[in-house]
């Protein structure tokens, strides 16, 4: 009550409160219209015909194949982007070298070009008539229209996510801890495991979650290079899209629900652990 009185008695404060409420309203509307509403409707449609129907449509052989393929590709993309993302972030923050700013801008390229372009570019390089495609094919290695291409395309589109989370944190930490570690007798590996990784663990976790979400959901680049062979090179988003065009709406929503659930779970897990750890 006291708060209400002061606001009423002070026109400046009252105005501030109005602004605050207006801003809140806009933010809530924005998120509702764009995110919450479509997701809620989708969840509703998923379970419209009962839980049994949902279970059936995500345990069908092609659904199981798509889910395992997506998980495998995502795991590989996370592994690759974590290792190279960490290396690149360390390179960018700790060393001065010619071409550093070029590399820095190149990192951002994958998010600024359309994923379809990424897919087409991969075909130009690894496709049957591409640069390496022919010689690789002679060795019996097929990349395009096979799993390696899906991994490559997924890595491509999620490349900046780990690096961009790590760079600001590494810059803030600076070089002194690293130098202190050196003078205290720690080898490069020991400094990485004992100093660098623990210091950046939350940024890294966030980068991994973003990579996971992006990798699970990637459609465009994968669509171009995967060939979309049912049960073999069909990832979850491809399956969802195909079911939708085949007028199996419920099936499309079911597989989409699995993707959304995985992504939301990851974000929740990180959100739960993060503050505890920093207290």
């Amino acid at each position, binding site marked *: 009550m006291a708060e209400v009185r002061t606001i009423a008695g002070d026109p400046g404060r009252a105005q501030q409160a109005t602004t605050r409420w207006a801003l809140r309203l806009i933010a809530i509307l924005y998120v509702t219209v764009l995110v919450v509403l479509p997701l809620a409707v989708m969840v509703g449609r998923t379970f419209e015909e009962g839980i049994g129907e949902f279970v059936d449509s995500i345990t069908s052989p092609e659904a199981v194949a798509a889910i395992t393929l997506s998980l495998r590709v995502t795991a590989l993309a996370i592994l690759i982007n974590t290792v190279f993302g960490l290396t690149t972030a360390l390179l960018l923050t700790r060393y001065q070298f010619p071409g550093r700013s070029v590399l820095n801008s190149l990192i951002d390229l994958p998010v600024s070009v359309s994923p379809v372009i990424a897919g087409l570019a991969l075909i130009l390089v690894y496709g049957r008539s591409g640069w390496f495609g022919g010689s690789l094919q002679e060795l019996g290695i097929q990349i395009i229209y096979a799993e390696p291409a899906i991994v490559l395309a997924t890595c491509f589109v999620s490349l900046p996510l780990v690096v961009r989370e790590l760079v600001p944190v590494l810059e803030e930490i600076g070089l*002194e*801890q690293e*130098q*202190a*570690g*050196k*003078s*205290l*007798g*720690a*080898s490069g590996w*020991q400094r990485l495991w*004992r*100093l660098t990784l*623990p*210091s950046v663990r939350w940024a890294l976790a966030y980068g991994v979650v973003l990579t996971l979400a992006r990798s699970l959901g990637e459609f465009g680049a994968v669509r171009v290079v995967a060939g979309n062979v049912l049960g073999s090179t069909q990832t979850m988003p491809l399956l969802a899209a195909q079911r939708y065009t085949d007028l199996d709406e419920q099936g499309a929503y079911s597989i989409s629900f699995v993707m959304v659930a995985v992504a939301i779970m990851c974000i929740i897990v990180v959100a739960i652990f993060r503050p505890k750890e920093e207290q």
Partner: protein
Amino acid sequence: MGIQALNIKKSFGDFVALDDVSVDVHSGQLTALLGPSGGGKSTLLRIIAGLDQADSGTVRIDGSDATSLPPRRRDVGFVFQHYAAFKHLSVYRNVAFGLEVRKRPRSEIRRRVHELLDLVHLDQFADRMPSQLSGGQRQRMALARALAAEPKVLLLDEPFGALDAKVRKELRDWLRRLHDEVHVTTVFVTHDQEEALEVADELVVINYGRVEQVGGPNDLYDRPANEFVMEFLGPVTRLNGRLLRPHDVDVFETPHEGTITAQVERLQRIGFEVRADVRSADSNFWVQLTPGQIEAMGLAEGAPVWVRPARGAATIEEHEPPAMLPDPSNLSESAEK
């Protein structure tokens, strides 16, 4: 366990940080590298530690060539101006770090860490995180950490530069006592001449990438090799074309042998000393006196006086306008690039 740096040269682009510097640090001593910011003293310390590489020259630690050894094989403890605490590790784990990476047995680590935390009066804070410590406590933790693996030499880069004046003075005394207890060869970098004169056994004055003078605190104060050292180590006044300390001037109210005549322009008391601004026929200068002397001589503003350098005073011939002098505004800066 002495340190020899021989003919060290180091440039950063066009900037010459060290120009053929040789320094010999004696075993067991506490040596100060003293000089204005940007003079090259921190660079020299980092080269000794192996954190920077010299363009040319040799570093010998404990008699053996360490020039191309990585820092972790040099057996040095290094303390940074801004502590460089491992923020994700407790105070205990910070101090234990050097022992853990050397895979020492756990019982030995526990004994040694508690011994050191006791030495730096932080044993009750063993389980805290560095963010829960004050600046002075963090720097003591950093010192314990540097000493943990029993280094041959301890190197401190402006160790008290980031602390406030009172804590600084306390830690300074404490460092001296600590050094008397552990006797490890210690080199510390400072731009604060009072700190260096008070704490160090030996001072190396470095300016513009060159060693200006090496010696004990009294040597340097009483017998400065040149104008720069004289100006940097304490207050200076000019009498008859010579530089000398303002307390090294005899003042009389009657003519004496070797005196020149002058007039008191202004008397300003600052605590237990009196600053007398004096004008002679050809120059203005100032003299440091005590309130007792003023009273005994009955000095007043406007009174005639006769002055001469005191017997045994350190004096230096004055050169043309001193180009080598540091900008006084730089001297108070704590950060050295």
